[in-house]
């Protein structure tokens, strides 16, 4: 019989092997789905793991998709490291798109290109405001941040719906629920001709470095991680849990808001009810699969972007439902958490 046995100390190998193992389980499940739907598994898997990286253009699309996932994932990693369960990044992202998009709508064709900066800052502010609500209710009313942050996702979505169906609706948009296209000066230019890649991706990489330094080389980052791992020790050391709460929530809200604004004036160029494709939720998986480590998050962000692109390709080329992306995402996290058991335990054969 197989038995789980506690390891004397956590395995450093398994910390990074576990995501690969989880990916293998997910892929095996995917093969099963492709077979069940009567498609070639090889062809199906190539949509997810080969097509997105096979050409420079496809890689640029991958980076474009990965940008919001990495940015949001970074903020969430800081949250989860300090044991603050912000699961409403989706709402914070939407608020970022609303705030950023709102500023972008003010601009005309002759506004200086520098308007991009206020747009992005507004996005950061929007995300922060939404996350600050969570922090305030947790801090002042002891309200569970999981439920509050999640409820605010629905409120954010309805707020966006209200704006694009109501006051912000494009008067010349044939009554479609959408704003007018943002004026040219507000749009992020393309970094490389012939691709849609914009400044968002370099910004995300800078953010990765900043968060890495903050988490692993700053006192504030150390304090909040102590608070997450050992609240008692943190209290004894005099580290403020309230400060940690506000710091990580404002930080993750800001990153999610930035991601929303970047997408609004990047690939989207206008606001519609479908601004987000569930990036805020996918980024939760990105954070965990990336081991709550900024560098790992770049890799897991790219992986999750592959799932998104692969899902779209499988739909357009193989006629498979796009919803497969969500199945794979959820399964990956579920498998990862199971595999993580092997960090602290090993499997022994016992008779």
């Amino acid at each position, binding site marked *: 019989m197989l038995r789980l046995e506690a390891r004397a100390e956590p395995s450093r190998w398994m910390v990074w092997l576990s995501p690969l193992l989880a990916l293998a389980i997910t892929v095996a499940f995917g093969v099963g789905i492709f077979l069940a739907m009567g498609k070639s598994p090889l062809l199906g898997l190539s949509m997810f793991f080969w097509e997105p990286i096979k050409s420079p253009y496809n890689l640029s699309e991958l980076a474009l998709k990965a940008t919001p996932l990495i940015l949001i994932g970074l903020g969430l990693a800081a949250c989860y490291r300090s044991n603050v369960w912000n699961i409403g990044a989706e709402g914070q992202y939407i608020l970022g798109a609303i705030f950023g998009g709102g500023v972008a709508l003010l601009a005309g064709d002759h506004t200086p290109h520098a308007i991009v900066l206020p747009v992005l800052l507004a996005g950061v502010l929007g995300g922060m405001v939404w996350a600050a609500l969570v922090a305030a209710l947790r801090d002042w009313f002891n*309200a569970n941040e999981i*439920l*509050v942050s999640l409820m605010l996702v629905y409120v954010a979505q309805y707020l966006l*719906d209200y704006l694009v169906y109501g006051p912000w609706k494009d008067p010349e948009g044939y009554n479609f629920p959408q704003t007018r296209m943002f004026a040219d000066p507000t749009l992020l230019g393309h970094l490389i001709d012939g691709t849609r890649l914009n400044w968002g991706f370099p910004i995300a990489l800078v953010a990765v470095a900043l968060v890495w330094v903050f988490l692993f080389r700053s006192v504030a980052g150390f304090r909040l991680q102590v608070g997450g791992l050992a609240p008692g020790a943190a209290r004894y050391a005099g580290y403020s849990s309230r400060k940690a709460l506000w710091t990580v929530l404002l930080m993750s809200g800001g990153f999610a808001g930035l991601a929303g604004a970047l997408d609004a004036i990047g690939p989207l160029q206008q606001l519609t009810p479908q601004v987000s494709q569930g990036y805020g939720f996918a980024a939760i998986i990105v954070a965990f699969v990336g081991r709550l480590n900024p560098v790992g998050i770049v890799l897991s962000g790219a992986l999750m972007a592959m799932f998104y692109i692969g899902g779209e390709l499988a739909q357009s080329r193989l006629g498979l439902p796009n919803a497969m992306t969500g199945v794979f995402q*959820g399964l990956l996290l579920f498998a990862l958490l199971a595999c993580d058991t092997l960090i602290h335990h090993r499997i022994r054969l016992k008779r």
Partner: protein
Amino acid sequence: MDMTASLIATTLSAGTPLALASLGLLINEKSGVVNLGAEGMMLMAAVVGFAVALHTGNQWAAFGAGAAVGALLAAALGLLVIWLGTNQYATGLALTLFGAGLSAFLGIDYVGKTLPNFPPWDIPGLSQLPFFGPALFRHHLMVYLTILLALGMIWFFDRTRAGLVLRAVGESPEVAHALGYPVRRIRLLALVCGGALVGVAGAYLSVIYTPLWVQGMTAGRGWIALALTTFATWRPARVLLGAYLFGGVTMLQFFFQGSGVQVPSQLLSMLPYIATIVVLALMSRNPLWIRVNMPASIGKPFTPGG
């Protein structure tokens, strides 16, 4: 029908899935496991229940299928959080994301399909009463069963030995273990039973309440049901009350619209979610009050002898 009577009737009907799910989650939490997978479980049960109802034409088969799906997913959750000791928040969340994805995947062919009408059960005699008849006595059988379930749970927790053991496992797994109770098996059983109820709630939603299958149709009801257990300070009667309150809030938006008040529908649709936040904040304001009522071992894994 009288406007007030109809408001009461729709409130009871809208509150029933919330109450069912929340009572299920209450059983989970009493045993010390918090189930953030409720939303995904409801969605999965909703799509499977809908499919079964469509193919068999039998609503009870649909409820049974919903319960089975909920129980199965709860067992998967239990395997991870109880035996492997994974983080309950992250694992439940994974289940919700997985359930949302898989239900959308499975449900593609069922979007836009219509079910045979499953008529409500008019209680003979009582349903003919003026006002009270249409308000209280012309509902689907599940509405009454839910009330009975809440009463049964009060009796179970307060008056039976099994209920006492369950509460002991949730309050202090160490003590329950020392007394010789199989803590992990009891938790799994509680998780599976609660999951089945969450599943029935999902099936009720797609088979009776809507009755349609739409991707993501639970619209956060699983999460609101989670908030309700806190709101109710973990007591079945208050769960029921809270569920009807929220059912009423959900219905209020349609009455506003019907009465011609000029408020954009999107802002009215926010009401249940904002109400959840407000109520949660008010109820949680006193940390001591929460700590006294909350099962003490919620969210903490238990390893015998560990």
